[in-house]
């Protein structure tokens, strides 16, 4: 135990056994609003099939197109939030959309985070020409407007939910790589890493035991802030016609498809998914901000 670093940050990062506990504790301390929204959405998306009153992809029998919400004239209780331009139940689409949007948001972030963290660690720890190549590619991809890149990737692989996830991951990994690499560069010079190297630990082992646990905080914070960005990006891709393909009920797609109706007074087609997106992004952002303050990594430039 003599080599335990005095820095409390590192001590926390290394305290693996207490992680679950600390997660539970963290959730208790997290901003209530964010936890309620995110937790609620998770539940809704898990039990979407049970909760949703109708099939989200097919018109409701007996309903018209553009039925208003139940409290308005012409609205009905079977389709409480109204129907869309295909006569589909908006509530059911929102409920199933929670699943799609959460999967896209979380998985997209996970893909971006995994690629970016791996690249950042390799680049920062291995250094040399590997570092050069990874960083130059990162720079080049960062200089490519994200939306342009996403459109072309989407065009290349064709739209499907999983492809969108891969695309968003491929677009957003660069910011992780940059930040994580910077972190690794300072970690590399720390005594405990030096000690491990002197003790003859392999590079892989040093990465696994010493580097990875210590960049996880930063990666987590970055991830929490990326989820919202990814969800908005998904909506933007739908706007450009290369997002999650219809008839899947993704919120971004619902919003994008129905946007003309905003001008026609059929506000419920866009306002409900709009509010859902707003809530989830706001919640992840607040959560991410809180996490950042709590974990306090060097993530200023986000």
């Amino acid at each position, binding site marked *: 135990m003599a080599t335990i670093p005095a820095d409390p940050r590192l001590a926390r990062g290394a305290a693996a056994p207490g992680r679950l506990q600390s997660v539970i504790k963290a959730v208790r301390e997290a901003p209530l609003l964010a936890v309620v929204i995110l937790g609620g959405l998770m539940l809704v998306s898990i039990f979407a099939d049970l909760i949703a009153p109708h099939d989200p992809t097919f018109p409701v029998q007996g309903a018209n197109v553009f039925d208003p919400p139940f409290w308005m004239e012409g609205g009905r209780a079977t389709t409480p939030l109204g129907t869309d331009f295909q006569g589909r139940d908006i509530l059911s689409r929102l409920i199933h959309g929670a699943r799609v949007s959460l999967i896209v948001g979380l998985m997209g972030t996970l893909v971006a985070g995994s690629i970016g963290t791996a690249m950042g660690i390799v680049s920062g720890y291995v250094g040399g020409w590997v570092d050069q190549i990874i*960083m*130059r*590619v990162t*720079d*080049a*991809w*960062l*200089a*490519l*407007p*994200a*939306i*342009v*890149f996403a*459109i*072309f*990737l989407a*065009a*290349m692989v064709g739209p499907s939910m999983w492809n969108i996830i891969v695309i968003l991951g491929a677009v957003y990994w660069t910011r992780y790589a940059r930040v994580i690499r*910077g972190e690794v*560069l*300072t970690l590399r010079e720390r005594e405990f890493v030096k000690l491990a190297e002197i003790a003859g630990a392999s590079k892989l082992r040093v990465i696994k035991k010493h580097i990875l646990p210590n960049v996880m905080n930063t990666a987590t914070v970055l991830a929490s802030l990326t989820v*919202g*960005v990814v969800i*908005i990006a998904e*909506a*933007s891709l739908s*706007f*450009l016609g290369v997002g999650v393909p219809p008839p899947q009920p993704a919120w*971004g797609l619902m*919003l*994008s498809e129905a*946007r003309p109706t*905003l*001008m026609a007074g059929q506000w419920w087609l*866009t306002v409900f998914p*709009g509010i859902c*997106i*707003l*809530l989830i*992004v*706001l919640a992840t*952002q*607040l959560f991410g*901000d809180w996490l950042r303050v709590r974990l306090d990594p060097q*993530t*200023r*430039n*986000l």
Partner: protein
Amino acid sequence: MPQFILRRVVYSIVTLFILSATIFLVVRLTGDPVALMAEASARPEDLDRIRQQWGLDRSWPVQYATFMQNAFKGELGKSFNYRLPVIELYFQRLPNSLTLGLAATLISLLIGVPAGIISAVKVNSGWDNVAKGVALLGLSIPGFWLGLVLILVFSVWLRWLPTSGAGDWRHVIMPAVALGWYFAASMLRLTRSSMLEVLGSEYIKLARLKGLPDVVVIAMHAFKNALIPVFTLAGVNMVVMVNAAVIIEVIFAWPGIGRLLYEGIFQRDFPLVQGVVIMAGFMIVAINLVVDILYAFIDPRIRLTR
């Protein structure tokens, strides 16, 4: 120092090279501009004729070599659709995009910086949450929807502002808000953390220890220092807004570079897309280079870590 600058310049050139190759390949892999513009009455001969006219009948390496050769001469080829040199088109649209980018940057600063300062000075108070909420709102609404809601409210209902297009200052307001608000969140975050960092610094401590009033400490000592990174990011963001405000420019029919890119992409106007992306990349790489070098002048430690 000269060696450091030289190294950074070489990096930037390599980056631009990778960027050019990526975009060159990617546009060609994803569609055929000739097939797109052909309608029912087209015949294979017609398509071949256009391909030849546009130089698309040559092999990719040849096309790339020509493209790079011209790029070094400062020419980025001629747009298929507009029959104008891409550079000329780019600079035709640049004033509009700069106007929008500047206005949007201003709005992102106007929302993000005060919110960030409030949030840093009054950490964890109600004000902190309100300020954060306002700044994060822009990030939480897809730009196209925010844009349409603005049009609906301020043009159609209230009739205060024109719906779209470029003209006088009133045309700029809505697109700038819709665009700038998105970036307000990053301004908020950076202002907040930068402010917190500065407020925790020794010189602020010393300023307080001198017995200076809080207003003087925050407004004079902290503010100026905290805003250096904020303005740096604002500069980088502005380059992005000038070059890639695709969605906002489409919604508001703003005649800027973003729309040029949009039409270029969907019509597979290869030279146009390549050119705009390279110009944008060049600006981003250049501004990063300048920032890096300036920071290295201010803080020698940076030279060691990069």
